[in-house]
């Protein structure tokens, strides 16, 4: 800016008022460091959770032995428990929690609405329908996951088509949300239809359990397939962080500032849908995380999406891992993850949201 300072600067406010409000904390490295340490500790402790006793340090040695030349001082079973059963499950919890939270945070920015969750465009309902149909038709695990993924994509594709056709003038975000709610309701009805047609002694319980969410009996292959979609999709959304900031000011302002918002919106929705559909396909439907983790991340890292999206991923992944640990250790029978997430998550998140207001 080459203009010298104005000779009569515009008066704004009394200094006292400015002091009271102070400068907002733009970054808080120590909070981030604390979050990362908690996550690491949780990761290691999670190996100790379960029926078969494994000390955290032993688990760490088993992991280290994969890359370092360590002589095993543990039983052969420990290898199987740590690497074959608990490691994929722990990674799945981190991956699914991170995926749901990143897409939730991206959607809250894109739609300029803090009440939006990753399933808002119908991806969860669509995936649920895909899975239910596959179970009804007697598909195997792979078939169910693939069908769930495609169902999620189909639902969001339908939402996009409807939303784009009813968006005439004004803000295109609202028609898209409306279309998402309608399509979500429609696919939920399809789920009910499949359940209605299902054998109540055999397929119906399977469908019900799938819909309640679980990370049990996942294998590395499935995990790798989901990660192959989730990691690049999340990376792309994180790279769009600053652009998401600008989109928070509305479609017209963003366009006037030089963004081709139509294409950007499509890109964000495609990325968020891919990663949510991939997550739901391996985990079933898990609510709340994708809605609330972005809020906690906003308290920690501020509203700037460049920091918000990665911090949301850490918080969401860590939360889901902690809840999954509880789901498989609280009772003799494992409680479905979707239920535990809601029952533990609701009061926990409410508590943190109240605390967070005091931090500000």
């Amino acid at each position, binding site marked *: 800016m080459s203009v*010298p300072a104005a000779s009569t600067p*515009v008066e704004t406010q009394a200094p006292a008022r400015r002091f009271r409000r102070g400068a907002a904390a733009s970054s808080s490295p120590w909070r981030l460091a604390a979050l990362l340490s908690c996550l690491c500790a949780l990761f290691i402790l999670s190996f100790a959770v379960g029926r078969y006793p494994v000390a955290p340090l032993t688990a760490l040695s088993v992991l280290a032995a994969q890359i370092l030349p360590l002589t095993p001082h543990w039983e052969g079973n420990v290898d199987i428990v740590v690497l074959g059963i608990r490691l994929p499950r722990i990674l799945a919890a981190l991956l699914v929690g991170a995926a749901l939270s990143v897409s939730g945070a991206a959607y809250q920015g894109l739609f300029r609405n803090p009440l939006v969750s990753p399933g808002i465009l119908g991806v969860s309902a669509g995936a649920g329908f895909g899975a239910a149909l596959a179970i009804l038709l007697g598909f195997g695990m792979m078939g169910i996951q693939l069908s769930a993924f495609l169902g999620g994509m189909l639902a969001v594709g339908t939402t996009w088509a409807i939303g784009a056709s009813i968006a005439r003038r004004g803000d295109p975000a609202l028609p898209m949300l409306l279309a998402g709610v309608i399509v979500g309701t429609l696919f939920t009805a399809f789920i009910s239809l499949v359940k209605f047609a299902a054998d109540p002694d055999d397929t119906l319980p399977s469908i019900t359990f799938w819909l309640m969410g679980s990370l049990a009996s996942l294998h590395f292959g499935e995990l790798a397939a989901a990660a192959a979609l989730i990691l690049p999709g999340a990376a792309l959304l994180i790279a769009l962080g600053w652009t998401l900031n600008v989109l928070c000011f*509305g479609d017209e302002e963003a*366009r006037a500032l030089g963004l081709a918002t139509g294409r950007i919106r499509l890109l964000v929705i495609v990325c968020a849908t891919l990663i949510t559909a991939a997550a739901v396909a391996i985990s079933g439907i898990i609510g709340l995380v994708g809605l609330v983790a972005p809020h906690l991340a906003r308290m920690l890292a501020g509203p700037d999406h460049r920091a918000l999206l990665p911090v949301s991923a850490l918080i969401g992944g860590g939360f889901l891992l902690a809840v999954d640990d509880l789901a498989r250790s609280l009772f003799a029978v494992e409680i479905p993850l979707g239920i535990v997430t809601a029952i533990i998550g609701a009061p926990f998140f409410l508590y943190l949201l109240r605390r967070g207001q005091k931090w500000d």
Partner: protein
Amino acid sequence: MGLTLLDIDRLCCGYGKRAILGDISFALGAGELLALIGPNGVGKTTLFKTILGLMPRLSGAIRLNGEEIARWPRRRFARQVGYVPQAHTPPFPFLVRDVAAMGRVARHGLFGKPGKADMDAAHAALDDLGIGALAAVRYTEISGGERQLVLIARALAQAPRLLIMDEPTSSLDYGNQLKTLAHVRRLAARQNLGILLTTHHPDHALLHATRTLTLDRHGRAALGAPAEVITEDYLSQTYGIASEIHVIRRRDGREARLCVPEAG
């Protein structure tokens, strides 16, 4: 009037097939401040949105530096034209300096972020408007008038040739209205910016505009020096309020025109 920046030629705008404004023509030069006045609902915002390419035009031409802009990508347009909308609150508490830096988004790519030069431009624009002290405050916690100033700073950070402002004074108090207008006029002169703004106050146009475009109730336009087009007839026919326009002599000897509405 300097070099012609913006050339509007027989522009027709409206929604769908329904024309709201027909046949508007005017040119805006560098260093000029053109005020647009007219009653509510006559299509001022529609005209702005059409010029900004936010809604399709029905017919006519819009040229920037002599070049038709219809096929310009948004980024190219945003490097030439800054837009100051009416201030509203976004749902998330961004910092003032980040809001100002958003004016630079056309200068780095989709996956880019503001670098040091961009942040410097944002700070300079804030300082220039006298709100540099608010840089690290949350945009959602400042007053409506301050938000309006931040949006002007954001548009200045775009380093545009032309600034389009939608009622930039509507949320400001009396002092800030006049200071902002004076500042905008200085910008036009110093940076050789062309400025197109709407205002509801005839006095603002009479005091600050180099030229004025008036719209009457039927969307008919008149263009000229403020004193030529803002007449007692125009005000009474357009707003249904009898007003007198008086030429007064200031203490420094210069003349000024003021609009004095009929009392009671």
